[in-house]
Each structure stands twice: as C-alpha cells, then as structure tokens.
C-alpha cells in the first residue's frame, strides 16, 4: 500500500521502460542564497538546453555545490526560481523533483548490495521485484559492473562505488542528472577513465546533465558548455573553446588555463604588439584600450614559441617533459612566462640558457594596464 502511493511521484512523460530519456531544459533564474553574511549565490542565472552537458567550474567556495543543491531541491533558496522542463519546481522538495544525483562523498547505502542500491529508487516507486531486478541488471551492465552486483559497497573500490552511484541515479530515469565533483576522491588514472565513461553514457542516454568541478581540465574535456562561476556569480557561460580562447572577464582568463601577461601597445582594432615578441591578433570588447594605448596582453602558452638566443631577453628557468608536449618556463625582470611546445620540435632550449620569444597566435584578452 505504501509503495503504491509513492508510485504516483513518477513524473508524467518520463518513461521508465525506455532506454533513452527525452532531455528537458533546465533553468536557474535569479537564484539567491545567503548563509549569514556569505552570499553563496547571488542572482544566478543559468540555463541548459535539453540533453546538454553543462559543467559548473569555479574555485572552492564559489557556490557550485549550493547551485547544484538548489537545483536538486536539497537546499532552500532565498529568492529566484528553478525550472525543470519549463515547470517551476522551486517549491518542490528533492524527493518530488525528477533528478538523479551523484555525490562527492561515497553515498551508497552500506547495508545493500550494488544491485539493491540500484533498485532502491524503483522500490520506492513501487516496481515489482522482478522488474526491479531486470532494470538494475541493465543499469549495472551499462556501467560495466554486472560482476559486482552482489557486492557490498565496502567490498568495492571508490571508482566502482561511484559507478554504482551513477547507475542508481540513472535507474529512476530522471529528467536531470546532477554530479557534484564525483571524481574528486579518486586517483588520477581512475578519474580520467571514469570521466570518459560518464561523457559517453551521457551522450547515449541524452539526459540533461550538470557536473560540478574545480578542475578545469575535467571541465573543458567533458562539457558541451562550461559555466565559470566566481563568488556566487556566473562569469561566463560558453563552449570550452569560447571559455578557453576568448574569456570574457579577467577572472575567466586567469582561472581557466594558464596565461602569460605581457606589456605592450594596442596597434589597431585587430592587433596588439609586444616589443621583441611580435604581433598578436585579438578581439575588441567593451573596455579594451584604444589604439595607441599601453595595454596588458594576455596570451596562452601555445600562442608563443621559444628559441635559443644568446642575446635573448629571457632566461630559461625550467623545462618539463609532459609526453607529447614540453613545458618551458622563462623569466624576465621577475615575471615568469610559460610556453608549451611540441616535444618533436627540433630546437628545445636548455635550462639556464638565454632565449627569445615569438608570437605565433592570438591574444585571449587585451586590457588596460593595471
């Protein structure tokens, strides 16, 4: 009887039998949340298209978890609204929203096997045990853990536990999948592996997904669009390429990827010059200094080359082999610059030698000299 009653909470339009979910749009509208004096979210606007993979990226404490929990209904909001599939769900508790969530800490129920964990949401919805077993089997197969179906959480590795948690979240065929730094407790190799798996699964299932991380590499490799957050605000929302190559704010420029700050002059609408390095193309936006003005020119490590030069202005301080690339650090007047160069390039400089730099691409941002 108890089970029948809650089966009504399966949202209309979500087929639990179907393999592929119809992605829905999700929107946070002017969501504000304060804890005492701390403004964790400050009128945050964020919208995802149906089936989109959105990664929320930002430093620790910027409000990513709060935003995700507001979406899930696990955190109350002071003002604003949350829409899932066009419906205002701001007043609904988490158990009534159609969400699947994977937590940062291991969240499997310790008294249940993997299979029972995956079945949990279906049991809540009153599915028969035969139906539950069948679906849990499918889900565990999907995350490649069918052999571990009878294992308890404490008998599995961290990576396996998070995969079961993912299967459990997807088993209820939610409209939205939320993941809060699900990989942060895992070691590097498992992390990279699981990252791929999550991406692939998301594509196959087609579910609208929000993934929180503070790791920019993770963000750029997973996202359809990256939401860069800072201080409870959205700094930029764009494709990984947009966020990396044309950051809209100083914060994004310095938080996502490595940047080198050169001093130079704005030449015209398209080109800025760094003395002895060369010309960088750039895109004008509001606040860019006028042609002829002095400016700070922000350049990615790949947009410069370095060559040995006895008369060069730069001193090579460090050369690190990274596999297919080499990272070179050079110094000039107390500032450090980072250059990434292919390992197969013939002319790799040695630490301690002098070198000069050459422009080879575009600047990501040109701003007035602070």
């Amino acid at each position: 009887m108890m089970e029948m009653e809650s089966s009504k909470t399966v949202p209309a339009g979500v087929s639990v039998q179907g393999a592929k979910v119809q992605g829905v749009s999700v929107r946070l509208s002017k969501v504000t949340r304060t804890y005492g004096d701390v403004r964790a979210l400050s009128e945050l606007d964020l919208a995802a298209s149906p089936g989109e993979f959105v990664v929320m990226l930002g430093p620790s404490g910027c409000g990513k978890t709060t935003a995700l929990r507001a979406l899930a209904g696990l955190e109350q909001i002071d003002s604003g609204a949350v829409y899932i599939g066009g419906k205002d769900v701001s007043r609904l508790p988490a158990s009534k929203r159609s969400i699947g969530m994977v937590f940062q800490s291991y969240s499997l129920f310790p008294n249940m096997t993997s299979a029972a964990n995956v079945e949990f949401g279906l049991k809540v919805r009153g599915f028969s045990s035969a139906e539950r077993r069948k679906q849990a089997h499918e889900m565990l197969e999907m995350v490649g853990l069918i052999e571990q179906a009878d294992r308890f959480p404490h008998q599995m590795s961290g990576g396996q536990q998070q995969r079961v948690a993912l299967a459990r979240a997807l088993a209820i065929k939610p409209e939205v999948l939320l993941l809060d730094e699900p990989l942060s407790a895992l070691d590097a190799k498992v992390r990279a592996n699981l990252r791929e798996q999550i991406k692939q699964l998301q594509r196959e299932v087609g579910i609208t997904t929000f993934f929180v991380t503070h790791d920019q590499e993770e963000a750029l490799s997973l996202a359809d669009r990256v939401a860069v957050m800072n201080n409870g605000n959205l700094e930029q929302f764009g494709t990984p390429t947009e966020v990396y190559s044309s950051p809209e704010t100083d914060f994004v420029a310095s938080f996502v990827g490595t940047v080198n700050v050169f001093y130079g002059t704005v030449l015209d609408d398209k080109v800025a010059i760094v003395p002895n390095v060369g010309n960088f193309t750039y895109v004008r936006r509001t606040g860019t200094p006028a042609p002829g003005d002095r400016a700070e020119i922000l350049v990615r490590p790949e947009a410069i080359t370095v060559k040995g030069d006895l008369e060069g202005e730069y001193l090579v301080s460090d050369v690190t082999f990274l596999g297919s690339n080499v990272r070179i650090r050079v110094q000039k007047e107390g500032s450090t610059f980072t250059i990434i160069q292919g390992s197969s390039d013939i002319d790799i400089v040695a630490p301690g030698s002098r070198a000069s730099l050459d422009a080879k691409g575009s600047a990501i941002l040109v701003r007035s000299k602070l």
Partner: protein
Amino acid sequence: MASVIGVPAKSSGVGGSNVLRVGKVFRAVVLGAVGLFFIVPVISSARFSFTGSSAGFSFSAYSKLLSDPQFWSTLFLSVKIGVGTVTLSLAILIPTTVWVHWKAPKIRRVMEALSLLPLVIPSVVITLGVITSFGSLPNIIMGTPVILALEYVVLALPYTYRTLDSGVQALDIKTLVEAGQSLGAPFRKILWWVLLPNLKSGVLGVVVLAFAFCLGEFAVASLLSFTTFAVYLVQIGQTQASEAIAFSLIALLFTWIPLSIVTVVFSRRAGKKSRRGGGVLMSSQSVTELVELSE
C-alpha cells in the same frame, strides 16, 4: 572508534612489534584481573546459595523462590517497565540523534553533555523533583509504573544516548538521507530501509543497556514505592540471606540470557546479509561499544 574497526593496525617496523607485544601482555593481565574481580564473587555466592548457613548441598533456596508468586509478579513488572523504557528510549533517541547529525552537527557536544547530566545529579534528587513537580499529574501516569519508565528513560540516557550517537556518527547521515531523497524516497522509507538497518548495532546497544538498567535499578523504584524485581530482591535480602543470593543469580541469568539471544540473533542476521566480513564487523562493533560503556 567504531569506524576504526576493520582497518588493520599499522605496525611501525621492528621496534613497533615489541611495543605491540608488551601491549598485548598488558591487556591480557588487566582483562584477567578484571575478569577475576567479576567472576570470583559470582562463584562464591553461587556456592553459598546452594549450601546456605546449614551444612550440605540443597536447592531449597531456589525452589522456594521459584514457587513464590511475588517473585514472578515483580519480575513481570520489571520486564514491563523495561520494555516500555526501551521502546520509549528508541522512539526518542533515533530521531534525535539522526536529526542532530543531519541538521545540527554543531550541537553534538551540547547534546552529549546534556545526556550525561543524570550521572551528575543524584537519582534521588531527580526523583524528588519528579514527585514534587509531577505530583499533580493524572493518576494514570503518576500512580502507575509509567512514571518509572519515563524516569528510567532519562536516567539511562548517559548510556543509551552515547551508544546510539556513536552508531550514527559512523554513518554519513546527511549524504545517505539526501541520496534517499534524490531517489524519491520519503523520510520514513529512508529511516526504515537505510538508516535503521545501518544502525542495528547502536539500536541493539540501547536495548541491552536500557533493559539491564531497568532490571537492576533500586533507589528510584523504592522511593516511588514500586515493588520491582530489584526492590523485592532487597526486601528478601533483609531476612533470608541465601534466598537473596539465589535471587540475584537468577536475576543475572534473566538479564543475560535474553540479551545474549538478542545479540546472537542480531549479529547472525547481519552476518547472513553481508556474507564476508560485514557480520563479524557488526557484532564486534557492538561488543566493543558495550565493553567501552561498561568500563
């Protein structure tokens, strides 16, 4: 400490194993001494109960007791009070400890300190307080053993609260509850399907401790003029020495037999569920918790 169980102790090289061995010997000696201290009086009183003041071996003390109707009625009263106390303690403590860990982990210390108060305030004082302040309550509470059960819930708090609290502490309550919610479960299902099964050893600890407390408590029961099992034991002891000893040995059996059954059943069930390791871990956890509390 519950979370440490199952993690293999790290031995720190050659020097470490020596220290470990000395530690083991020391532990054995202490445990042995404590064991003797406990077992010797039991054995000698057992002997006394069979011989009495007269010479020769006889069961007369026991047969007299077991055919005494008041022995059975007081035992029944104490069991009733015990069941009531256990039920009420669980009904109050499970929601409280879960709530504290989930919503207000900051007040954990305060709650713990509060739960220890009955140890600091003499039970006589508490009882006088109960009599004076609740004297006007309807007879259905004040004049019946219900008042005793209510008071035992409070007096047993130092043991019961800590036991359950450490069980809850070993779980990540917030995450488990939220995971349940995100899967669509209402709180009562999370409680039944997730929290309680994982709190088995803590709940078991509360049952054992609260029940044992009720069977053995004398001062409050006699102050409120209820002839409970323990009160009757003292009454008999004033006139018949060997019966009183027999009585207390029976009381010991009555406490430990049901408790051992409960313990075995509980840990067997836990063992069946998690074939490897889990059961052992579960029962060893409840045992360590009990040992710790009784120290």
